[in-house]
Each structure stands twice: as C-alpha cells, then as structure tokens.
C-alpha cells in the first residue's frame, strides 16, 4: 500500500431533485508509471491506482480505468444527477490490491 494515500472529495451539501452537480475528487498517490529509473538505472516498478468509481445509492455515475499516463495525485471532475437524498460512494483501486474509499451525503430539499 502506498503511503499517505488520502482521498479528497468535494460534493455540494444539498441540491434540488434532479439537479446536476459537479463533483471534484483528488487522491494523493505517487502513480509510479513503471517508466522511471532510480539512481542505479533500475526501473522503478509500476504502482498506480488502476480504477476509480463513483456511485450514488448503488447506481453508477462514472467508472474510470486509469493507465500510467494519469498524473500523480489523480484528479477527476465530472457531473452527476441527484434524484433523491442519498450518499455518493467513491472507490479507488490500487495496483497492490488496496482499496481506498470515501463517501459524501447529499440532501435533496
């Protein structure tokens, strides 16, 4: 597991039913591409987050496959529809099998 992996997610606290909201996510992760070499000329093995998903009350909003060409600290911004009060679940899958999650609640008023 990579060190100091910390997900950060920005979701509005409330919305009207059916409103489109913008979600921004950032997770601190080195995203080692497997192309770089260390001081002795040995290739540093690949270690990246390979998949990111966002769901709302179990329904998919976005499912992203990441390749080594995604920058350090992967950032995503996308739009979601909020049909009702519920919870956004965010999941990041690491190459080494670790899974990082975060969730945000949103109230439809």
């Amino acid at each position, binding site marked *: 597991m990579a060190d100091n992996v910390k997900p950060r997610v920005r979701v509005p606290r409330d919305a009207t039913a059916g409103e*489109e*909201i913008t979600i921004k996510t950032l997770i601190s992760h080195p995203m080692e*591409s497997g*192309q*770089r*070499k260390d001081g002795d000329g040995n290739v540093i093995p690949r270690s990246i987050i390979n998949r990111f998903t966002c*769901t*709302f009350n179990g*329904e*998919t*909003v*976005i*499912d*992203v*496959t*990441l*390749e*080594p*060409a*995604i*920058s*350090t600290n*992967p*950032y*995503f*911004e*996308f*739009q*979601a*529809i909020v*049909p009702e009060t519920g919870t956004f679940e965010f999941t990041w899958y690491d190459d080494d099998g670790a899974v990082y999650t975060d969730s945000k609640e949103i109230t439809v008023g």
Partner: protein
Amino acid sequence: MKLTRRHTLMMAFGSAVAAIMPFKAFAAVEDEIQAFTGGADMGSDGITLIAPEIAENGNTVPIEVNAPGAEAIIVFAAGNPTPAVATFNFGPLAADQSAATRIRLAGTQDVVAIARMSDGSFVQARQEVKVTIGGCGG
C-alpha cells in the same frame, strides 16, 4: 570532421532509426484504437477535447473531454511509451458525459479522444499539445 565510410554508414543508420521510431509509436496507438472501435468508421461531430496548446510541464497536463450521449470515452496520448491514458465509462446517473483530469505527456504529440455513443457509433477528436518538459522521467 572528415567523412569516412564508417561515419557515413553510422549516420545513415541513425537517421533510419529516427525515421522508424515515430512510426512505431503511431502504429501502437492505431492498434489500440482498432481494439476499442473494432475498426468502425469515426465521425468528428459531438465530441469535444479541451487540452492546452502548449503545456510547460508534461507531468500534469489538464484535459477535458465532453461527448453528449456517449457510453464511454477513451483517451490516448499518441506519443507516449504506452499510449492509453484513461477510459471513462458513464453510468445512468452521470448528468452529462464529460470529465476532466490531468495527464502525463512524454513530449509534443497528439492527444486523441474517442467516444462510443449509445447507438454504437464512434466519434473522435484530436489535438496537438506542445510540451516543453516531458513527463516520463527519462
């Protein structure tokens, strides 16, 4: 420098390699596009790729793709050692089929975005990004 037979041969070899290299990278991305589209014809309407014309740092190049009605959008960097960048699959709760992220580019090259529409057709957008400092740590 005197041009000997050896020098001439080496130079000829060097330029031949230089000529083949970009073609190889190009072929790799064409293969991956083929794998995604199955060789279908691609239009160019209905997809927007926003990328900077000049990126000073190839380590973090902000890009944005938008294709209304798309099921999935795949992004390639044609000149990277591995051309695939990311695949965005949109679920039923995606408000519009757009996403923004930051990518690595090894050098000046084309960024290609291809969307698979819900009717099974494909559209692509392509933009050249000039990179001052490459992002592959070479």
